[in-house]
């Protein structure tokens, strides 16, 4: 959290509480989020443009799962996390930074870890099936923002949300 130790933080109206996502390529992993106590997201299939995988890793317990959006288990899960989970973890680290991902998962990144896949390989992770529907519907909702109409009347409340990060 940016500036959280700043004494004036509690009395400021315009602070960026959550640092903005860092730019990353979206083609392989269009959706990543830290929500519902999980690192979860959607990974595009490498072979079939119509298919996507829903992958998730639970905070604390480090239980993982990967399946198609129709709940068919991923063939790559053979006692260890599949390549989709590794890709999800990699992109999460690009988007949020290693610290934030590790903190959310309650994982100790340790020395020498720089990528999400490395972080994942250090975890004592175990497989536990979870339904894909919740994550997939969150992804569809995420996409539906792009279909929402724009506005040309002012939204005064956005003054609390200044764009930031120049020269990042």
């Amino acid at each position: 959290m940016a500036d959280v130790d700043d004494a004036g933080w509690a009395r400021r109206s315009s602070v960026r509480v959550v640092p903005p996502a860092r730019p990353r390529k979206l083609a392989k992993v269009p959706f990543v989020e830290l929500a519902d106590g999980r690192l979860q997201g959607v990974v595009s299939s490498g072979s079939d443009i119509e298919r996507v995988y829903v992958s998730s890793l639970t905070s604390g317990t480090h239980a993982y799962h990967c399946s198609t959006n129709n709940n068919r288990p991923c063939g790559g899960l053979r006692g260890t996390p599949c390549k989709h989970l590794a890709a999800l973890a990699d992109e999460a680290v690009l988007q949020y930074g290693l610290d934030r991902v590790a903190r959310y998962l309650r994982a100790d990144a340790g020395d020498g870890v720089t990528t999400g896949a490395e972080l994942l390989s250090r975890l004592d992770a175990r497989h536990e099936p979870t339904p894909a529907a919740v994550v997939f519907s969150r992804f569809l909702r995420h996409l539906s923002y792009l279909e929402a109409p724009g506005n040309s009347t002012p939204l005064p409340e956005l003054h609390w949300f200044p764009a930031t990060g120049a020269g990042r």
Partner: protein
Amino acid sequence: MLGTQLTALTSGHPAALTDALDLVAGVDAALTRGLARVGEADATALAGLAGALAATPLADLVAEAIDKICAGSVTPEHLAALAGARSALLGAAHDALLGQLDAALGRGRDPWSVAPAPPAGPSPVLATVRAWLHEVAVTGWHGVDHELVAAAGTPVEAALAAPESRRLAVLLDGLAAELRACVPVATMPQVPARRWADLWARGVLLAQDAAAVDPPADVVDRVDGRLLPLGVDVHEHDTAMQIQVHGLLEPAAGGPPRLVRTAVGAAKVDTIVGPALWRLLQAHPTLLTALAQRRGVTVTDLPARGADLHWHDDRAQLDEPVDPFAAARVLLPGAQAAAIAPLNRHPAAIAEPVLLEGYAVRDHDGGLAADLDGRPLAVAVDRLPSCGPLTPEVVAASSACLGLLRWDDGRWLLQPLAVRADVKRKVVDVHTGDWACGVSDAKVAKAEAKTGDAVAVLRERAGRLLRR
């Protein structure tokens, strides 16, 4: 802005401002701990708020609400009264601060003209929003958990689906995203109590059935004239963005120039950041071109309310190139400003264009400050957007700045929108809107190309997966 004007602005607070803000801080602390069981300190603070409003028309309503809240019976009406009382206090702070600014700059300001509000019936959407905000207030920020954050999903979705509650939806979505990232809030070293209470209180007011916030089309003015953009302010959170162009309008009918602004925005997702933001605004090519090429715009029959022009790109035509610095130097001192809508009055809404020249930039309290005749004005470097070329380094090398005067946490700040700076021994003008029609810096363009077109990738995915 002259050194003497900056001195007038920054020497001393308006009377009783500190007391008012202390009362607000007391309410913020109560909302942090939650209203389920109001402790002694919070009860004293809330009683102080009621006392401050004793001489206003809200007096009885607020006094009764706070009595009941302290006794442990919180109804939606009591919370509306609490939110109203806090907002009234900050509205008064806004008026005092803006009055100080107008007096310092010699800026004239037209009052808000009251238009009759259209009758509003009960709305089920607003009811679900009120229910969630109620739950949040009773729980307190410290008690916010995954479950309460997830419960925001339904009201946010309902509000987003109804165009008339767009403002509320955007506010709520932004607040919910922050809470989601901070859960469990109890483990945070410090809670952004002022900010979250601001958003909560505004949300409660916007979620009232009587809150007719956008005037119907027949009560707005129509304007014709030449718009000279001074600069652009960019707002964004994970799922919404907006650009607000501040400019001078030379009315076609003659008379003094008016200080106006116009905002256009779009919904987005968190992975669309940086210069890609401009691509979300392609429905407004004239406005974007005017920013990128620094040109004036002739507008015809544009709806307006106070200082806000409601943009219609098809009613705008590009005009001659205009140097915003020259326009500000000549026209800004005599330009007529306008008041904002009563509901929007809050110190965070203050964004007044100014031109500063002949200052020195130096380090100040861990940030930058523009030093004008020995008087420092802190620079809001955290308000420089990543979608434009204006960086803290460029600001540090600048000698002239077009910016917005803002106020937060007890001090005035300068938010640069454009600077004239010495870069590699050449004097250049750098504006936040320079990349409105595409990135003009080769290095940044290359980095952009590397990550690809986020908007296009997500639209492709949406096209394939959404309509199933």
